[in-house]
Every structure is written in C-alpha cells, then in structure tokens.
C-alpha cells in the first residue's frame, strides 16, 4: 500500500472556475509533501492562488508551468499515499456538487463558423504561454500555418513583452475582464438554477456599537475591532442554531458543511469580487477573527489566497461597508444555499421603550435556496443573528 500512487489534480476553486495555469511550483520533484502543504501557485481569474495538497507522500511528475489546464487535469503524482486514490478536484464537502455544469458560452476565440487558423502545435503552446493570440499572427509555415518562429518574432517585435512573466513579476494579477466573465457565469448559473427567497430585518446595533466603542477605546488602532467582526461572529453563532443554511446543495439535495466557514465577499480594486473562507468562525475569538479578516482581505487584494479558502466556504456574507447601500439582496454562490447581507450602519429614529430615539441600525438580509430551506427557517436565522448582536460581550 505504501507504494500507492495518487493523482494530484487541478482543484476546482469555485463554481466559476473551469481552468487555470500553474505559474510556480513550490516543491521540487521528489519533495515530501503532507496534507495542508502549499505546493503550487495557480493563476486563476481570481488572481494567484496558493494550492494546498491533501495527500501524503513524495511528489513527482510535476505538470509544466504556464499551461492552461482544465479543472481535474493531472498536476502531479504523489507516491506513497496510504491507500492511493485521487485528490479530487474539490475537497470532500464540495465534491458532490463540484462538476459544475456551468453551461459556459463557447469561448470567444473559437467562432462557430469558419475554419480555424492554422497554428502548429509548438506555436500554439508557445503563444499560450506568452498569452498572445496565435491565430492573429502572420503564418509562414506550410499552408500558411503560424509556426513557432512566427510567434517568437511577434514576441520579440511586439511592443508588449510576453505577458508570460506574471509568474515571476509578482502574484497579484488577475485579469478583471476574465474575472467579470467568471462572475457572470457563476451568477448567471445561480439565478438560472437557484430559486432564491429573500428576507430582511432591521437590527438595532446600539448594544453592539456601545460594546465595540468601549472595547476599542483602550486599544491602539491595530488591535481595534471593526463592526464586521461582530456581524460575522453573530452570523456564525446563529448558523450553529440553524445549520440547515450552512452547506451545499447538490444532486442529492442538501449536505451540511463540515464547519462554519464563512465566505467573506471582498471587492477588488479595479473591479471584481472574491469570497474566500474564514474558517470555523463560530469557534474564533473576536481578536483572532479580526486578524484573520485583515489577512484575508490583504491577500485577496495582493494575491496569495489559498486553494482551501476558495473551496471551503459553506455560506457567504456580504457587507457593503460604510459607504454602501442600506440593504443588499444577495445572489447565492453555488453550490452554497444562502448568502447573508449587511447594509451599512446608519443612525435613524427608532422606537425604544415607547420613545423615539436615534439608534445605529443595520439592515440584515438573507437570500436562501428554496430547494434547501423555507422562509420560516431563514427567519429563524435572522432572528438568531439579531439576538446574538444584542449580547456582544458574549460573542
């Protein structure tokens, strides 16, 4: 058994991902790997993602760099994993629903009519590495085919140096246009397939704000907490009570998430959106959660998210922040079954003990998958979040 060889495959880093490139291997052939190790950097439309491995053994046969590989493509072999097998494109929780049947539109580079331009296999590969469209080049090969030399010429003559460099240049870059396409595909699928229902409730944030002000008053800025941390923790607490909204919808219906891993929606500068996981939010102390949140946002914007952070979310929380709108009606990120939204915290008249008083209010919303739950359950979740926010000291 110890000689078993397992396949390490291109992971699916979300329902909106179809392919990606390995831009860096962080291990060498023959390196020893164990579950949780970050072994490669993969470039997706979400930027450069650190890919973890969940196999144990010696890694070999590393896939070449800078080739666009579909989800499920072989990235490496791992020898010596007990039991062998395969590291599936997605981790167990999401696996049943992963073969995302995203009815993707035909790629824009392949028009439905007309013959494909002739490009030699070697030229095609080189052009792909360099990120240029070989079809558009002037071909000098047999039957006018674009050859490797034609591509090299275009690369050396063109004003832009081969943008195959991002691997070395840095790991920030995601392509906004590509990400827009991916969001379009995922959200389109969500709205086509998921019968959403929506609930909203306004929550008095007075207790939470008061507690927060007291907590922050005595602390230097780096240690202070943001309201978002309270909202996240309250949501996680509520999900412990209403686990039916924390998980995935697949062929066989609902399957609960393995933990409360909240995907935190982060808008990226230059456009685009990513919702990587904060793990086990219900079990994290507030200061630790604040640190995790800062780190996550930082990495989402500069590159360096880990693959598990993209595959693990069991629910999404979106908060529009201080400059956002009063409320948000979210679109569920498949195969999750719910998204919780927080509008901005605003001061408004509110009736407290029979009198109108100014109070900080936040509009809390839920979009949930009606196949997996009903409005009654969703209402319970919102009520539980409200309740948790009224007792911030215990969060």
């Amino acid at each position: 058994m110890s000689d078993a060889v397992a396949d390490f495959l291109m992971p699916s880093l979300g329902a909106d991902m179809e392919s990606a490139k390995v831009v860096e291997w962080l291990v060498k052939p023959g390196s020893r790997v164990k579950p949780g190790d970050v072994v490669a950097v993969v470039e997706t439309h979400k930027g450069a993602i650190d890919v973890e491995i969940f196999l144990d053994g010696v890694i070999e046969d590393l896939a070449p760099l800078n080739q666009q590989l579909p989800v499920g493509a072989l990235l490496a072999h791992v020898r010596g994993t007990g039991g062998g097998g395969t590291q599936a494109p997605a981790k167990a929780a999401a696996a049943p629903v992963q073969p995302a049947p995203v009815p993707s539109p035909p790629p824009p580079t392949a028009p439905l009519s007309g013959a494909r331009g002739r490009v030699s296999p070697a030229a095609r590969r080189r052009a792909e590495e360099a990120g240029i469209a070989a079809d558009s080049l002037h071909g000098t090969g047999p039957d006018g085919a674009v050859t490797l030399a034609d591509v090299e010429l275009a690369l050396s003559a063109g004003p832009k140096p081969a943008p195959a460099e991002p691997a070395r240049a840095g790991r920030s870059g995601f392509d906004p246009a590509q990400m827009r396409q991916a969001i379009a595909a995922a959200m389109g699928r969500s709205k086509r397939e998921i019968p959403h229902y929506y609930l909203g409730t306004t929550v008095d944030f007075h207790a939470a704000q008061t507690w927060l002000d007291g907590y922050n008053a005595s602390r230097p800025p780096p240690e202070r907490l943001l309201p978002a941390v309270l909202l996240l923790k309250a949501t996680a607490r509520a999900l412990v009570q209403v686990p039916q909204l924390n998980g995935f919808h697949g062929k066989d219906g609902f399957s609960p998430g393995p933990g409360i891993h909240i995907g935190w929606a982060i808008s990226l500068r230059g456009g685009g959106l990513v919702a990587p996981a904060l793990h086990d939010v219900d079990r994290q102390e507030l200061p630790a959660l604040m640190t995790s949140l800062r780190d996550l946002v930082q990495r989402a914007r500069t590159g360096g998210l880990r693959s598990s952070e993209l595959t693990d979310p069991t629910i999404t929380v979106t908060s529009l922040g201080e400059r956002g709108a009063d409320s948000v009606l979210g679109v569920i990120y498949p195969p999750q079954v719910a998204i919780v939204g927080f509008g901005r915290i605003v001061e408004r008249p509110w009736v407290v003990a029979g009198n109108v008083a100014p109070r900080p209010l936040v509009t809390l919303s839920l979009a949930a998958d009606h196949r997996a739950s009903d409005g009654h359950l969703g209402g319970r979740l919102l009520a539980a979040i409200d309740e948790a926010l009224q007792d911030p000291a215990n969060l």
Partner: protein
Amino acid sequence: MTAAPLRMTYREACRQAIRDALLADPRSFVMGEDVGKYGGCYAVTKGLLEEFGPERILDTPLAELGITGAGIGAALAGLRPIVEIMTCNFSLLALDQILNNAATIPHMSGGQFAVPLVIRMATGGGRQLAAQHSHSLEGWYAHIPGLKVLAPGTVEDARHMLAAALADPNPVLIFEHIVLYNAEGDLDPAVTAVDIEHARIRRPGRDVSIITYGNSLPKSLAAAEALAAEGIPAEVLDLRVLRPLDMPAILESVRRTRRAVLVDEGWRSGSLSAEIAARLADEAFFDLDAPVRRVCSAEVPVPYAAHLEEAALPQVADIVAAARELVKPR
C-alpha cells in the same frame, strides 16, 4: 598515435565481418545460395570457401524455407549460423520459418530455447533488377516481435554490426542494401565494435530532422548538404536499428528541430515510416512545428526501366523538397 583510416567498400566490410566471425567462433558458419563456389550473388563471401572449407561455407539448394529452417535448427542446437538470403524478396519463402519459428520459439519455450540465428539479406532497388529483386521489405520484418532488425547504412556498421548480431541470443536480421555494396567509406581502426541498439545522428542540424536508414542515408546526407546551401540546417538521423526503434533518439531529435521528414525506401502504406510518424504524432505532438512528412517509394512494383526506377525510388531532390516545404515554404 592514431592509425590512418582504412578505406574500403561496404561489400568488403561485410566480407571482413563474416571472416572475423568465422575466425572468432568455431560454432559459426555460413550457408546460403551461391555463397561458396560462386562467392555470393553480390560477391560478399568471395574467397571464404577456399579459406574455411565446405563445412563452414555451405552452398545450399534454392530453398529459402529449408535453408532458414536448417539455420534455426543449428542455432537451437548451439551453433551460430549466418544464413544468407539472396534478396529479401526471396525471404518471403522463408517467412514461415522466420516468423513462426525463429521469432516465436524463444517465447513459446518460456525462454528455454534461444535462437541465436543471423540472417543476412540484400534489400532495396536502384540497380535495375526489376520488381522481383528490388523491394524493401525490412519494414515488414520490423513488425514482428521477437526479431531484431538491423539496417547498416555505413561501411562501419557493415563492418561491425554482424559481431553484435551474433552475440545476441535472439534472431537478428541484417538488411544490406544492394546499392551500398559498391559504396566506399572510411573505417576508423580505433572502432572495433558498434552497438545494435541506438540510432545515430550522422549530421547535426537545427531546423528539421531527416530520419532514415540504409541506402536512403547517403541520399539524406546529400539532401542535407543541398539544404545547407539554401540556409536550412537539417539533421540526419540514421535509425540503424529498425526493431526495436530507438524512440528516445528520434524524439530527442524531433523535439529539438520540431520538424521531421521520414525517408523510407519501403512503400508508404503501412510502412515503417508510417509507424514512426504515428509515434511522433503520439509522443511529440506539442513539439511539432509542422506536419510530419514522408518520402517513400511510389506504390508500384519497382520498375525495370532506369528512368522509371529512379522516379519510383526516393531521391535527393524529393528529400530536399520535403524538408524545404516544412522549413521555408514558398
């Protein structure tokens, strides 16, 4: 001090190789049609009867099946027979013995019986011997598991491949091209043995690999010379061993040059060059910068008339044109 190169013909190299083998191993002997008194149809065994006597240089009846069968029996019994089949066209009469016995007995006996038999055959066209004496059938034999198939294309290989073939415990077929017998080449006295496993680059080049063997080797080298004058650096890879193919060498060359022209005097359909082309498509597809091209014999029985024969066989100009078309089409 290095000795000066020795110049000799391919025929003489073959003769010396046989003589060496007879001197080196008392178990070895030659048998075939006209190998004794006549000195061999292509004069390869001339003088050997006088030197070694009729027990070791056996003139046989015109019966390829019998000759080959006797050779297999002798090999099974511990001798080291060198069987000569006058031309590979006639070897078809011995095909049953070659395929069903020589190639098969070691397998069917679970390795208990070895067949250390060497069969030399003349092959190829170009000397106006017409359709029953001019065909190139080595590709057919390269189809058969259990055989090793050699195609010496140089004087050095003609001189040294036989010893390696006799040392091999399995049946080895050596295809000597009839046009090459008169070709002269230099022998480096420092080289006393060659392997029968590897292809060899006879001329290094950057832009296209001309992969060939036998008498197509000198044609390919001439083509490479002409291509160089046009500014196309062509590599010439001599297969030497047609079974098993030295795929690592073939792939290494093609992955480097990214283009391949296969030159094979066999007919194109179902040929050795077809096999190599298929393997290139399979194993080097993403390294190719152009389609794989083949220069083969026209699919006709090799004609007798000189100009028709010339037109039917691969020629230097055909190879040049094929390579040029891949590298610098116009």
